[in-house]
Structures are given as C-alpha cells and as structure tokens.
C-alpha cells in the first residue's frame, strides 16, 4: 500500500489476505473475496486443461489424415476425446463459472457496499460443488489416459467421446464415460444454481443505503440477469443429466428409442438449458464490459437504463429460442419458423448494448489500458459473433451451415472472443483491487494485442471453411480444407503465446508489482471506495451509494499513481453528488 506523503502507513493494515492465516482459514473461509480467489484457482486450472486440449486438437488437425497417430482407431478415439473434453471442461468448468463465480464473487458485495454475500456458507458449498464436479471430470480424463496408456478400463469411463452435448442415443447406448461426465456436470450445475440463489438474495437485500435498483452498477444488473438464468435453467439440465444416467444404468426409456423413448426430447431438454447457458456465459461478460468501457473512457455510461434492462431482456428471450439448435432434428416446420423468428429478436437487446457502449466511447477520454483493449476487442468480436449468429438463426441458411466449422467459429467468437476477453479485461481491471498490486501495463497491452490477432487468425478462416462445407467434429477431412486448418492452428499457437504472456504478467504483478492505489482507474462504483486489497469486512463504515458512473469527484494523484477524491475545492453537496463514501455517525 502506498501512502500519500504526510501520513505514515498504518503499521499493519489488515486486509482479507492477511486477516487469517493457515490452510484451514482458506479451505473453510466464508469470505466472498477468498472464495472468489479459490474459484479463480480452480477455474484457471480448468482453462489451462481445456486450452491444452484445444491446442492438441489444432495440432492434430494440421494435416487431413491424422498425422499424430499411426493407428487410425487410436487417432479417432483420441480426437473424439479431445474435442469432447475440450468442450465439456471449457463450458461447464470454465466459461459458466468464470465471470460470476470469480469476478462476481469478489466484486459483487463490494459493488453493493455489503460485507459479504447473503449466504456465505452456501457460497462455500457452491465452491465445493465445483470441486466435486471437477473430481468427476478428472476421473473421466484419467480414465481416458489410463485406457490409452495401459489398456485399463475403469468402471464407467475411458474418456468421453460424446461431445459436450451428450446427444442421445449415442450417449445412452454406445459412448463411454457418459455416467461420470454427466454426474460431474450435474454437480457443477448445483454449484452454478447455488451461486445464482446467493446472488439474487444478495442483490435484493444487501444493497447499500442510496443504492436504488437503477443506481446499481451495470455489472450487478448483468449478474442479476445471469443468476435468474442459472436458477431457472440449470435445474432442467440437472434432471436431464440425471435422466441420461438413469437411461444408461437402468434403461428407463425416456430418451432411448430402443425402448420407446424419444431422443429428440433430450435435445429439447438439453437446449432448454444450454441455450440460456450461453447467456450465462455472455451476460456477466457484457456487465464487465459496461464497467470497463465507462471507467476507462472516463465518461458516464450512455443509456444506463437500456443496458440494464437489455440484460434482463436477454435473460428472458434466451429461454424461448432453444429450438434454433434443432432445425435439422426433425422438428416441425412451424416450430422451426417460430424459433427462427424469435431468435432474431435476441439481436435487439444485444445491439442495444453494443450501440450504448459505442455511445459511451464517443467523445470519451479513452485510455488504452489493458482492460480497455480487451473491452474494445470484445465489442468487435462480439459484433462478429452476434451477426454470424443471425446467419445461423435464419432457417434456410442454417441448413447448409449446420454442423460445419461456421458454427464453431460463431460460437468461439461469442464464447471465447467475447466471454474470455471480458474475463481477461475484468481480471486486469480488478487485479489491483484483488491483490493490492499493479501489473505491468505495457506487457499487458502487448499480450492483449497478440491474443486479439491470434484469435482472429484462428477463427476467421473457420467461417470461410464452414461456408465451404467443412464439417465439424471430423478427425480427417478433405484436403481442400487444409489451408484453413493450418491457418487456424497457427493462430491457436499465437493465442497460446499471448495467454502465456498474460499468465507471466499476472504472476510478475503478484510478486513484483508496485503497490496498487485504492482507485487506480478513477471509477466511482463502491469497490473503488475501499482499500486495495479490501479489509476482511470490506467497508469500515457502511457506504452510501450514488451514481456509480459519475466520476467527476475524483482527481488523478501522480504521487500515488491513482485517483483520489477531489476533496478540497468542491463543496460537500457536490462531494455527495460524486457518490463518495461518507462516514455515517450513529
């Protein structure tokens, strides 16, 4: 902690990192900040794992005929396992929990001016649910490794080759590893549900004085909308996965046509969750972007109400468009048409957000900090991802594009180009608050640019390959697609390099970074009103909230490299208008 000149630093400032010591104080912590950090450890490990699978897939696909293996059966088994595990690990263990459980857990109570989430023990339980699910996935993964290496077959799994979607009847009748993988996803789902329950209760009951609904930071709105989806959609996935398990172990015949079930019913159930789930992925990311854009262009967010309500609109619309994943499943034409039309309505709130972000940037004093670079990357990539989504939502266009690389590219533009960029941007944005250290700015910027370029090299060619008909999930492919695959693979390596730089940058910042000021960016939401890193109880005095985007009350202080309240020449009433914490006497 650096200190303004005249006042010597307090001998030992208590913060949440130093509040208690020892393994138990972390393993059984009820502090939302520590739980957020623990989640971060888990989620980043999952990302490393899923990323490794992705790089292996890209390497595998360098040539049309599986150059990595002599034995074709082995090659195909390997490939099927890699893309299934990549998908399942990334979706269930990384993308869905990343922003809500890491950034949300850490920042939400701070933004609300609360001491913790409403149910700290439930929060810890949700963390352990995550680890419980992770154990099941590890079982599947290790089962695959052991099967490949020693020919050992564990009960229930030698890897997972259903794809992350667990489509029936393949998953119920033939594939391996379905039972442990679905149980793992089931438990991870509970982690997600509990986080959602917790956040809803927290946002309803623990807002600081002065924080009306329409004075909440937009990240909070986004988390609220996300929580609604988590609560309403995830239970359906839970029962679906249970039914798959029951199908495999008891032959109940709900999905299995062999005993009279309906496999398309599975697709309906699955997408009833998994389409809203893509909003679980993207909504909190959008919330992060709203914060980043406003703070780093030093301008009040444009169209606050529209951004806030478009989050809720997206959450609700997300529930009525699942059928657009099933245009070729034998769904009736009427249903197809209705789902297609509804899908287009999703474009409205998405575009509302994009235009409002652009409106915020317009005439702002934009600083190209690392978080801002990610935010701008997000806007571009999300626009591409969103617009190509409309191609896929259009009935006639979807038929040829279905199950091609076009879908892969679209999904990665949204899930990776948007969600991952927002996660990285958010991590950089709140890094000083989390650890009380600054990262090295220039390195961060370079990494952001490398990742951005690498990302586009990876996935733009896949749009082209997809329109030329390259099918997804094929271990071997016609030679005419090789050039796109080679480009993709090069881009993937570039992205990997960029991500390694990010990892280095964070570690370096953690160990060697200069002490962070309390408010390094000049934001005015409540988390910038408490010290970096925050004390155990967040706020010494319950803060009073005002407009989180009115940043006029702060001025830059060169001596500490951060922003301090413009305390001297402004009258008390104006100070209040700038939304600063005031001590409350009672």
């Amino acid at each position: 902690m650096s200190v303004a000149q005249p006042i010597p630093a307090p001998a030992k400032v208590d913060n949440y990192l130093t509040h208690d010591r020892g393994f138990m104080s972390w393993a059984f912590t009820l502090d939302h900040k520590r739980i957020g950090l623990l989640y971060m450890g888990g989620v980043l490990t999952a990302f490393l794992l899923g990323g490794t699978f992705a790089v292996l897939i890209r390497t595998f696909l360098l040539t049309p005929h599986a150059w990595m293996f002599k034995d074709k059966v082995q090659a195909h088994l390997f490939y099927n396992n890699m893309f299934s595990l990549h998908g399942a690990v990334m979706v269930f263990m990384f993308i869905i929990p990343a922003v809500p459980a890491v950034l949300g857990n850490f920042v939400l109570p701070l933004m609300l001016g609360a001491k913790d989430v409403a149910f700290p023990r439930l929060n810890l339980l949700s963390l352990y649910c995550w680890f419980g699910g992770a154990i099941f996935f590890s079982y599947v993964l290790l089962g695959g490794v052991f099967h490949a290496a020693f020919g050992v077959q564990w009960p229930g799994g030698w890897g997972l080759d259903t794809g992350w979607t667990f489509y029936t009847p393949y998953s119920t009748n033939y594939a391996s590893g379905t039972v442990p993988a679905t149980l793992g996803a089931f438990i991870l789902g509970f982690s997600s549900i509990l986080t959602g329950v917790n956040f809803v209760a927290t946002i309803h009951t623990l807002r600081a004085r002065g924080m009306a609904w329409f004075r909440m930071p937009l990240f909070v709105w986004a988390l609220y909308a996300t929580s609604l989806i988590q609560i309403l959609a995830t239970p359906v996935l839970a029962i679906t996965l249970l039914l798959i398990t029951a199908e495999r172990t008891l032959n109940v015949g709900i999905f299995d046509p062999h005993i009279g079930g309906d496999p398309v019913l599975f697709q309906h159930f699955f997408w009833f969750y998994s389409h809203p789930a893509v909003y679980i992925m993207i909504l909190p990311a959008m919330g992060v972007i709203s914060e980043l854009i406003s703070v780093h262009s030093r301008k009040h967010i444009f169209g606050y109400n529209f951004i806030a309500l478009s989050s809720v609109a997206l959450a609700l619309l997300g529930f009525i468009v699942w059928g657009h994943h099933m245009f070729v499943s034998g769904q009736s034409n009427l249903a197809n048409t209705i789902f297609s039309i509804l899908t287009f309505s999703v474009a409205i709130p998405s575009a509302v957000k994009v235009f409002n972000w652009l409106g915020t940037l317009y005439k702002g004093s934009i600083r190209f900090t690392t978080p801002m670079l990610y935010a701008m990357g997000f806007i571009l990539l999300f626009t591409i991802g969103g617009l190509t989504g409309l191609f896929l939502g259009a009935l006639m266009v979807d038929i040829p594009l279905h199950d091609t690389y076009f879908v892969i590219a679209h999904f990665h533009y949204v899930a990776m180009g948007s969600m991952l960029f927002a996660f990285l941007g958010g991590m950089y944005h709140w890094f000083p608050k989390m650890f009380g250290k600054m990262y090295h700015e220039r390195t961060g910027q370079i990494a952001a640019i490398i990742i951005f370029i690498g990302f586009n090299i990876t996935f733009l060619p896949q749009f082209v390959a997809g329109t030329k008909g390259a099918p997804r999930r094929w271990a071997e492919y016609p030679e005419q697609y090789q050039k796109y695959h080679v480009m993709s693979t090069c881009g993937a390596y570039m992205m990997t390099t960029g991500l390694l730089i990010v990892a280095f940058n964070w570690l370096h910042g953690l160990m060697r970074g200069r002490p962070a000021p309390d408010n390094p960016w000049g934001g005015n939401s409540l988390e910038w009103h408490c010290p970096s890193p925050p004390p155990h109880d967040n706020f010494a005095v319950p803060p009073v909230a005002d407009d989180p985007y009115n940043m006029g009350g702060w001025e830059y202080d060169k001596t500490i490299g951060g922003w301090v309240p413009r305390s001297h020449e402004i009258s008390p009433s104006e100070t209040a208008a700038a939304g600063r914490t005031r001590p409350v006497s009672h």
Partner: protein
Amino acid sequence: MSSASQTDLPLAAPHGDHAHGDHAHGDHDPHLAHHFDTPEQQMTSAKLGMWVFLGTEVLMFGGLFCAYSINRHNHPEVFAFAAESYLNVFWGTLNTLILISSSLTMAWGVRAAQLNQKRLLVVCLILTLLGAAGFMVIKSIEYTAKWDEHVWVGKWNQYNADYKGSEPEAPGPALNAPPTPVMTPAASPATPSDANAGQDVSMIKPRYGGPSGLAAPTAHPNESIRESSLNERVRVERYRSLSDSEQWHVSAFFSCYFLMTGLHGLHVLIGMGVITWLLIRAIKGEFSAEYFTPVDLVGLYWHLVDIIWIFLYPLLYLIH
C-alpha cells in the same frame, strides 16, 4: 492510498467502535450474522433465498412433468392401461391424506414457534415426522408390489424391451398355457426372418425377437403370474388390445412413475432428515418468537414436497 483521510474513511475503522468482526457478538443477537444489519434483513434474505431455491426445485421436477406429458400425449392408452392395471388408488389416496396432514402439522409448528409455544412445536414436528415416515412406509409397500409384479423400472420391467427376467417364473409360456398367437407366431422366433414372416407389423419388431424381446410380453408376462385372477385376465386382454407400437411404451409409464415418485421420495427423506434436525434444536429450546427462521424455511420446503405430490397423485393415480 490507504490513508483513509483522503477517501473519507475514518482511519480508526477496521477494529474501532463499530467492530463487525467475528468476535464482536456481545451486544448482538447471537443469531445475527456479521454481514447483516438487522434480524429482519437476515430473515428476509433467508426467506427469499429459500423461495428461489424452491423455484429451482419446481423446475427440476418440471423436466420430469414435461417428459411425462409428452409420453402421455403420445401414448394415452398406454398410460391408462398401466395406471389402471398396476397403481393402487387406495394407497395413493391414503398417502395424499397423510402428506397433507403432515403439511398441516408443519404449518402449525411454524405458528407455534412464532408464538413461543415450545412444547407444541415439538409435538407438531414429531407428528410431521411421523407423517413423513408413514408416507415412506406406504410408498415402500407400493414399490414392493411393483417389484413382485415385475413392473419395476427399466430392465426390471417385464414390458421393457431389455427385460432380463429377474425370476425363474418370468418366461411364462413354459409354465402356463401356450402363448396365444394373437400378436406373434412364437414367443421365441428362431431368427429375425421368422419373426418377420409371422407378423403384420414387422417394421420395428424383429430386432427384439426372443424371450426377453418386445414380442415376448404379449405372450408371456401376464399369464406367467400364477394366481391368475379376474383382474389379471382383464389386464392381459387390455394389453393385447393395445397396438404394437403402444405395447412398446408400457414400460415408459413405469419409468415416469418411478423417476417422479422416486425423486419425490428422496425429497421426503431429505425432509425427514431436516425435520429431525429441527426437532433436536426445538427440544433444546433454541427457537423462540425472536428466532424461528429455520422452522419457517423447513416449513416452506415441506409444503413444496407436499405440493409436488399433490400434482403427482392425480397425474399418476387418477387420470386414465
């Protein structure tokens, strides 16, 4: 910039007069967690959280209700046949009454807690627990009957294409009258082509020829039950009157039945656990008019368990 004078945060704060830490409960309500300001706020949060959680429960059961509706819509005769033939309305009705009564005693218990009537609370909780136990006993009687009739879930269901025949008596034809040739020429066709030859609707069946195959139930399962009562005959007649494709789906009804009542039963068991926990705390006298949140929350949960049953009961037992 920890110097709080600049951010208007009083320096003395972290462990000052306002200590909210874990250690400063002296003058507080012992049940008030450190991050809440007032007991009311805490109670509101807890109740909201519980309601939201109950919402997730409804959606989870919703998946099963949806599967039931679709199956039923596709094969109404099957559901009518299976429900009428195998479900015992008496036990179902009795269970409904028991569960509703236990909901009453639970609600009464919440009121007793609110009014500081500690002995009444204990009595109500015991009655609720007894109701729950009674429900489970009756459920297990019903499940046992299903097991004896070979209409359990999945491969333990004689109507299932994957039926394994858990008892020696199962391949009935040998023990009883020869199989009627209504639907199939033989209970165990030698080859698929034989099966094809004798069947009117051969498009889907041949895969399942053989004693445990789909064709088999038409021939044996009902006749295999030794004490062939009038009911049994009616059942066999009705079964034979179903079309081929409908005969496939009989086991789907039992899948729905067992999954729905099974998941519900699991909730009852969890409820019994939680009510026992409440009972222990109530006997210790931990609840009062000031602090009864857990009683309230468990009450909500118990009513949900009740209300799910109130939907399950007519869907499974009554409508045919």
